[in-house]
């Protein structure tokens, strides 16, 4: 069965902290994605990766960076968290066909 896991379901951080969100997939998928989900805005793509050490900016990359050192793991990094980064963060992966498989999400609150 397909499995995408995210390191935390809920996270509370302070303004200015460096935050790491981890995503792991066990399906040997090449492509991985980070989205943020906000009410009324749907899902917006932050970054994606189509191979190990390869990454591309999505629609809203400002304030974020990513790391993909191994095929199964894709990390989202908030270099200096701000309150406007309070959101739900969703990771997804795909083998390059049609369906994206999503993790359960991390609800991040920055105070």
């Amino acid at each position, binding site marked *: 069965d397909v499995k*995408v896991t995210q390191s935390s379901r809920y996270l509370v951080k302070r303004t200015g902290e460096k935050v790491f969100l981890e995503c792991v997939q066990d399906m040997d998928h090449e*492509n991985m994605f980070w989205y943020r989900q906000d009410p009324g805005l749907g899902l917006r793509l932050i970054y*994606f990766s189509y191979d190990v050490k390869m990454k591309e900016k999505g629609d809203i990359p400002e304030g974020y960076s990513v790391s993909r050192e191994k095929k199964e793991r894709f990390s989202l990094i908030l270099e200096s968290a701000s309150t406007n980064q309070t959101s739900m963060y969703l990771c*997804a992966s795909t083998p390059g066909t049609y*369906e994206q498989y999503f993790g*359960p*999400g991390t609800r991040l609150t920055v105070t």
Partner: protein
Amino acid sequence: AQSVTQLDSQVPVFEEAPVELRCNYSSSVSVYLFWYVQYPNQGLQLLLKYLSGSTLVKGINGFEAEFNKSQTSFHLRKPSVHISDTAEYFCAVRRTDSWGKLQFGAGTQVVVTP
């Protein structure tokens, strides 16, 4: 660039009644179309997809959607809803010449009441 418009942010519906969720898109190139569902406190899962062929697509849990190219629409329907269909529904498009990037609509919250 593509854009996706979900015309209703919230749809209240009674149990066993039909429901239709509307989705319109714009794109200068051919697209694939998807509907995803998000149950409370969960990630998204695929309900159905249109890639080519028959414009009426059947998905899981009794949902179906119809692709209308002339109206650039991909509306989702279910003839009789259950309480368990309470969820948020997202329409998404993907360029046929790209390998994975999805453009999502803002979502429609469906609330089913007895």
